[in-house]
């Protein structure tokens, strides 16, 4: 019984971070370079929207699928765990407090951090294939870090989870601010792309 509980509560945690990161990176890699490939980058670059607004729009379009996947996955996973393990433990017990902290406080900045890197890459490269490759390479270390962090969050308790989440938020905000400078009208037109 304790093996089922340990598996459900502690050993599946990394999946909760890896899957939404994968979804967000797949969407984010195409978002800016895709405009150029479709030929719609020219319309966007001549639109009245500022570069910051274009960046924010692209960021939201990439963040929403990742957060949606995380929320739906969390809901489905909670149902699976409670329906299979719950009856043996005397009732529904999942999500535990640490899982709530992981999903609401630790996971969102990691997705944002990955997307900051990916959007900066997507603005700079010349093809969607190159963006996909480069973003996979750039997000791999992040996935490894997220894997360790998610396990650590659940193993060490709420206090360290809040600290880890706080640090991740600081990193994400800085990375998003830096990445906002990568989106320019010239790059949407295909000038200045690598």
């Amino acid at each position, binding site marked *: 019984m304790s*093996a089922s509980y340990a*598996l459900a509560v502690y050993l*599946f945690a990394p999946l909760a971070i890896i*899957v939404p990161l994968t979804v967000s990176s*797949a969407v984010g890699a195409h978002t800016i370079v895709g405009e150029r490939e479709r030929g719609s980058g020219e319309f966007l670059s001549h639109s009245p929207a500022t570069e910051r607004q274009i960046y924010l729009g692209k960021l939201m379009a990439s963040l929403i699928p990742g957060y949606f996947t995380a929320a739906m996955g969390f809901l489905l996973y909670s149902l699976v765990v409670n329906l299979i393990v719950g009856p*043996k433990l005397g009732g529904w017990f999942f999500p535990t407090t640490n899982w709530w902290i992981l999903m609401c406080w630790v996971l969102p900045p990691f997705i944002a951090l990955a997307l900051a890197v990916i959007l900066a890459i997507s603005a700079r490269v010349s093809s969607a294939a190159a963006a996909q490759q480069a973003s996979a390479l750039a997000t791999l270390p992040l996935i490894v870090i997220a894997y360790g962090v998610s396990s650590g969050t659940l193993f060490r308790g709420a206090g360290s989870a809040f600290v880890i989440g706080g640090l991740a938020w600081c990193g994400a905000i800085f990375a998003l601010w830096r990445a906002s400078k990568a989106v320019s009208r010239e790059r949407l037109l295909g000038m200045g792309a690598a």
Partner: protein
Amino acid sequence: MSRRTSTRLPRPSWVIARTDLRQLMQARDFWMPLMVVALLFFVIIPTFLLLILGSVKDANLAKKLSDVVGSLPKEVQAHAHGTRAR
């Protein structure tokens, strides 16, 4: 006036995001594999493993599983066994 507008979430951002999301929704061949991956990791694999784990009757396998729990940190072990960690 212009200062006031810049502090709000800019409307063109929503238009760009909505257009991208609509295009994404229409590209079934793009999001279907991603959903399959998500289902696999969030539902199918956990269901399979938890069901397998719940129906173990072999004593050797049960011992190996308890060894896995034994390799977890002490606080986690205590929690998994239903006792309060010190």
